[in-house]
């Protein structure tokens, strides 16, 4: 597509429920990144994919968080047993093979855990 698409744009869930966040990168972009932005905070790296593999998962905050990418396109970030501290905007970005040129970000998914 023309840009990075994320869905849903907003998600309200009850504590303890599982959620899935979706990211559809720019067509042809091999690298895909997930970040978390808590209210009033900077961007916190979670995980990135190069193709279908995830060379760096170092930012995933706990084993409740997981992500997958299939077909070098869509990625899904799953949060199990959500907690209130998971409330944040989850941003996805994609880039071509050279990250040094910068990313294109999606508009994010605002997750609220009540």
């Amino acid at each position, binding site marked *: 597509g023309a840009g990075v698409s994320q869905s849903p744009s907003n998600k309200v869930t009850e504590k303890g429920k599982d959620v899935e966040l979706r990211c559809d990168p720019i067509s042809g972009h091999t690298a895909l*990144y997930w970040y978390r932005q808590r209210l009033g905070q900077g961007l916190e790296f979670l995980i990135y994919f190069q193709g279908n593999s995830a060379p*760096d998962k170092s930012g995933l905050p706990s084993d409740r968080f997981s992500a997958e990418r299939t077909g070098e396109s869509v990625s899904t970030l799953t949060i199990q047993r959500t907690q209130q501290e998971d409330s944040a905007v989850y941003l996805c970005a994609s880039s071509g093979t050279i*990250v040094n040129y*910068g990313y294109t970000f999606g508009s994010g998914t605002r997750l609220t855990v009540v």
Partner: protein
Amino acid sequence: AQSVTQPDIHITVSEGASLELRCNYSYGATPYLFWYVQSPGQGLQLLLKYFSGDTLVQGIKGFEAEFKRSQSSFNLRKPSVHWSDAAEYFCAVVRDDKIIFGKGTRLHILP
């Protein structure tokens, strides 16, 4: 390890005044540096980037940034701000095949 430091959490300037947002990095002898802007309710937009060569780089919306290796800095400047520049600004550096962001500087514009 902290890679990017933005020492100012908030900056307030009057419309029409000049602006400088500070950024210091601590990673890489030849860093790849960026400035992104996040307007209220908007996604992140790339303002400019530095790889090598000319240390003064021009970006969109009239912004520029100067890379100073001796000071490990990459400060963002604009000669005259507009009310629409009110936003959060993030300095960032490439580290280990991903972009690491500073904590951001929120810019407020006085009419």
